[in-house]
């Protein structure tokens, strides 16, 4: 029955992103909300693999004196590798969305999503 700080902050970040998506009426501000939500998901994924009193998964001579000590005390390296890929894909998606926002602003003259829905002849 203990609240842990990692999980609470990750869920608060996701909720802040959802509120920003609901309340703002500007395309670029909604994009900022999406980026904040993705950061919360990454924090949640990394803190799934924690081991109590764990050490970093790099086999140096200063971190771990021998291999059995290292194997029994290191944290899970697999979520860290997958989140590394996900961060780079986040950059690509945000860049492409921003270029489409520039295109929409030049074509419509406004960044309001309720006015962009109308079809022009």
């Amino acid at each position, binding site marked *: 029955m203990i609240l842990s700080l990692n999980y609470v902050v990750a869920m608060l970040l996701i909720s802040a992103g959802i509120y920003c998506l609901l309340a703002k009426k500007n395309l670029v501000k909604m994009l900022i909300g999406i980026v904040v939500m993705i950061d919360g998901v990454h924090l949640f994924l990394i803190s799934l693999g924690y081991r109590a009193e764990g050490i*970093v998964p*790099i086999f140096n001579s200063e971190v771990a004196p021998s291999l059995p000590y290292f194997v029994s005390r290191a944290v899970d390296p697999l979520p860290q590798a997958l989140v590394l890929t996900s961060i*780079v894909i986040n950059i690509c998606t945000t860049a492409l969305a921003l*270029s489409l926002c520039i295109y929409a602003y030049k074509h419509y003259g406004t960044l309001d999503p309720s006015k962009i829905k109308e079809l022009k002849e």
Partner: protein
Amino acid sequence: MMAGMTVIVKTISRIMFPFIFLFGVYIVFHGHLTPGGGFPGGVIIAASVAMLILAYGLERIQKSTSFLHAEVLDTLGSVAIVAIGILGLIFGAYFLETVFPLGVFGQLFSGGNFLWLYIGVGIKVAAGILLILFAMLMWDRGEHK
């Protein structure tokens, strides 16, 4: 974005640029021994050039690092990754097999083809982010290239 900044900002950014660039190259080269690797190292290299763009203006930087240079570097990084993989197909059994020697544990030239793969990824990511920055800054100009 065309005009630069004051003399103080120009002097300090000109002094700090080699150190930030060298730090990014250090993180790329020691990817198999310390935390980091090609992806954060490439972003640090691109951030050092972006600091120079902010201080001096876009026209001054385009004389030495133009749009064409960034495109060529981006393509070379991608080709390097696939070429190392095809080397594994020729000299071994499957794509991306280890072709470089394993070496002594803990030295710089150890770990097979992780070092060269990370160098390719570092060049590719740095050039890609610089290319996105150039394209977003020059979209209302006449003829670029």
